[in-house]
C-alpha cells in the first residue's frame, strides 16, 4: 500500500515511473514530485503507470492539476502504459477526452 516514484531526467523529457497504489495517502507525495516537473517550459513529462495496480479520484486530481500546470507553463503531460482498471476511471469521468493517454493499454488479457 505504498507508491514508489522514480524520476529519470533527460534533456527535454522527464520519465516518472510509478509503482504501487495511488490513493489519499500516496497522492500528496506524487503531486509534490510531479508538479515541479511540469513547470519547465517545453518539457515532456511522461508518467509510466505500468506498475500502478490501484488508483482512485485522488490520483485523478493529481493528474488534473499536473495537466493544468502544463497549460500554464507550455509543457506536456503524457500518461503511458496504463492498466485497464485505471484507464476505466479516466473513461468514466470523461478525462480520456482531455488527457494524453497512451492507447496501448497494458495488463488487459
Amino acid at each position, binding site marked *: 500500500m505504498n507508491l514508489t516514484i522514480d524520476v529519470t531526467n533527460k534533456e527535454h523529457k522527464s520519465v516518472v515511473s510509478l509503482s504501487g497504489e495511488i490513493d489519499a495517502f500516496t497522492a500528496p507525495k506524487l503531486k509534490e514530485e510531479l508538479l515541479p516537473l511540469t513547470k519547465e517550459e517545453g518539457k515532456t513529462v511522461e508518467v509510466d503507470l505500468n506498475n500502478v495496480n490501484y488508483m*482512485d479520484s485522488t490520483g485523478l486530481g493529481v493528474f488534473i492539476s499536473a495537466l493544468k500546470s502544463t497549460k500554464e507553463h507550455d509543457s506536456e503531460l503524457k500518461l503511458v502504459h496504463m492498466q485497464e*482498471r485505471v484507464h476505466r476511471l479516466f473513461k*468514466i469521468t470523461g478525462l480520456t477526452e482531455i488527457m494524453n493517454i497512451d492507447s496501448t493499454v497494458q495488463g488487459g488479457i
Partner: protein
Amino acid sequence: MEPFDFVEVKVPAKPEYVGVVRLSTSGIANRMGFSYEDIEDLKVAISEAITNAVKHAYKETDEGEITIGFGVYSDRLEIMVADHGGSFDLSNVKKDIGPYQQNDAIEDLREGGFGLFLIDALMDKVEISSRYGVIVLMTKYLSENEVGQDGDQISTTQ
C-alpha cells in the same frame, strides 16, 4: 428479517488507513464470491467514501474515527461509512459532482469532487444522510453468475 453477517471496522480518520479498509473490503467481497471486476469497483468506492470522510469531517483536528459496517447478505454487500465528526454541506457537495463535459474548460476542471460521482457510478445503490455526521450507505449486488456466499465452487465470471 433476512439473515446477514455484520462486520464492523473502526479506523482513525487518517489517509494512511484508507488502504487498510480497502484491503478489508476486498477480503469480504472475495469471500462472498464477487468477480475480480466487482471487487476492484468496491475497492475504489470504499476508498472514495473513506477519503471523503477523512477530508470533510475532520478538517479542524487530526483526531476522530470512521466507522465502517459491512452487511453481508446472500445476494449483496451493503457498506456503511460513518463519520461522527462535524458534517459538511451536502447540497454543496452534490452540486459539485458529475463527469467532465467536453465543453468544460480545462481551467475549470475540479481537482476533487470526482469521489461521490465514482461511488455512484461503481455501486448499484448509494444513499447519503447528513443528519448526524455523514453516513454513506452503498450496496453492490452479486450478479447471478457469481457464486453466492455458501457456494463452494469457483466463480465462472472471468
